[in-house]
């Protein structure tokens, strides 16, 4: 496998404030990496470092086996930032042509217009498009050069549900083509669906680097909800943690589900609406943040 990104002992500061602290990881070609962390954890700064937009204080960074500042790698990189490129008094189709003109082997205009889902709005000025349309247009701009490495920073923020669905469908197609994708999102369920690997940043440090399965193994639990007229004392369940009890509604967090169900089964006649849910990335995220 080819190494696409290599980061060793990376640290960087804004003035005196540490924004990334001693990060090390490598990303191989074809991986889809979810970059997670709370606001201010350092996700966008890390992307800026990888793109050569932010200087580092120590450590080493290589992108496509070259320095991030190297001009030659830019043909192979596509970026969709959180804040959109919106040039006033320029039409959407013109912006697509401008972006295409920068690359030696760009995607076809029609293809990009389709990705941007412009329809009849292609002739509108970019600043007159809706926020969601601007996001889709910026996604198309990121793909203009047919990149092998794609950075998506909060890509679906501002998109409606249908657009988000189409967007991730297209990202899956890109992944199937073997492109390397690094994505940050606040919609963790979306990351859960697509990422083959999770990098979790907390307080500017990398606290988890592995697959979602690893993450689940380390933070695995299930949430169990049910209704019962019994009080918690009468239930006397020892193997789960009672998270909430209100108007006969119970929520337990359980690590050993088999043990928990064995305890529960003797009182099953007084248990209603039993539901068992898998740990979601949202739940794990909460746990990691609270640790």
């Amino acid at each position, binding site marked *: 496998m080819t190494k696409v990104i290599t980061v060793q002992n990376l640290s960087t500061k804004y003035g005196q404030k540490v924004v990334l602290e001693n990060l090390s990881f490598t990303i191989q070609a074809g991986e889809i990496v979810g970059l997670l962390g709370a606001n201010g954890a350092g996700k966008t700064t890390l992307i800026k470092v990888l793109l050569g937009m932010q200087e580092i204080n120590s450590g080493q960074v290589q992108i496509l086996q070259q320095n991030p500042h190297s001009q030659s790698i830019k043909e192979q*990189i596509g970026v969709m930032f959180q804040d959109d490129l919106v040039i006033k008094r320029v039409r959407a189709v013109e912006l697509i042509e*401008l972006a295409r003109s*920068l690359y030696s082997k760009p995607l076809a205009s029609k293809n990009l217009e389709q990705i941007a889902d412009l329809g009849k709005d292609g002739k509108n000025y970019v600043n007159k498009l809706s926020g969601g349309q601007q996001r889709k247009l910026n996604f198309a701009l990121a793909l203009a050069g047919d990149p092998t490495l794609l950075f998506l920073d909060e890509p679906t923020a501002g998109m409606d549900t249908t657009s988000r669905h189409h967007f991730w469908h297209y990202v899956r197609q890109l992944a199937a083509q073997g492109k390397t994708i690094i994505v940050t999102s606040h919609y963790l369920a979306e990351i859960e669906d697509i990422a083959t690997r999770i990098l979790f940043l907390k307080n500017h440090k990398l606290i988890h680097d592995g697959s979602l399965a690893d993450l689940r193994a380390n933070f695995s639990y299930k949430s169990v909800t049910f209704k019962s007229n019994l009080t918690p004392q009468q239930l006397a369940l020892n193997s789960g943690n009672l998270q909430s009890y209100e108007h006969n509604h119970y929520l337990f967090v359980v690590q050993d589900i088999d043990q928990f169900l064995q305890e529960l089964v003797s009182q099953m006649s007084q248990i209603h609406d039993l539901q068992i849910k898998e740990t979601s990335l949202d739940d794990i995220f909460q746990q990691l943040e609270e640790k």
Partner: protein
Amino acid sequence: MHNFRLWTQINFKRLIGRNLRSFIFCILVPAAFYLLFTKVMNQGMPRDFKQTYLISMVIYATLLSSVITVSNNTLADREQHVWRLLKVTPLNISTYYGSLFLNILLLSVIEVAAMELIAFLVVGVELTLSNWGLIILLATLGSLPLMLFGASITYLGDGNTVNLVSSMLVFPVAVLSGLWWPLSMFPHWLQKIGQLLPTYQTYDLINRVIQKHSWPLTSILGEIIWLIIGIIMILFVQKHSHAV
């Protein structure tokens, strides 16, 4: 080359074709001054005043577009994340600034031609065809260092700072180089400073070429020195700025 042509075309549309308000401002302000001083407050003015004041107002028009229009547009580009393309895509700085400056040069040509038309049709200035052409050529070339200063200002800070600095540059330079009032009205030491300014060099160059048919080497050299200073300045601020 394809991307330079396309960027130049689209910059023309967004800076000139679709931005008539700014375009008209760059022509109307100097035109209003010119008409005010030549048609209304023209008592006791020297005989060649209409012609010399035309040169002043032509340079003032190019000063406005080169400093204010350039700094406003590069500021807008920064705020609209166009500069980010310089960092993350193969767009190079020569294409970006080259296509921008080419359009501002074209804007200068249009402005100067419009001022000449007013001078000819309304004020009654008469010059040979070659002299009309020389004014357009020299005023436009003289705006090159001013564009570099306009672009450099954008790196100095946020929108307020950029607007403040560009205004503080344009109006004192216009006054000190004698574009609004004759330089002879100022104290001797202030005249000496005014004569060093790039706008004065352009004024002196055009005036001498038109009136005395001579090419003053000191003004040409002055223009070249200001151009070099402008290039050094933009390279310096560009290298030391993190404004993306």
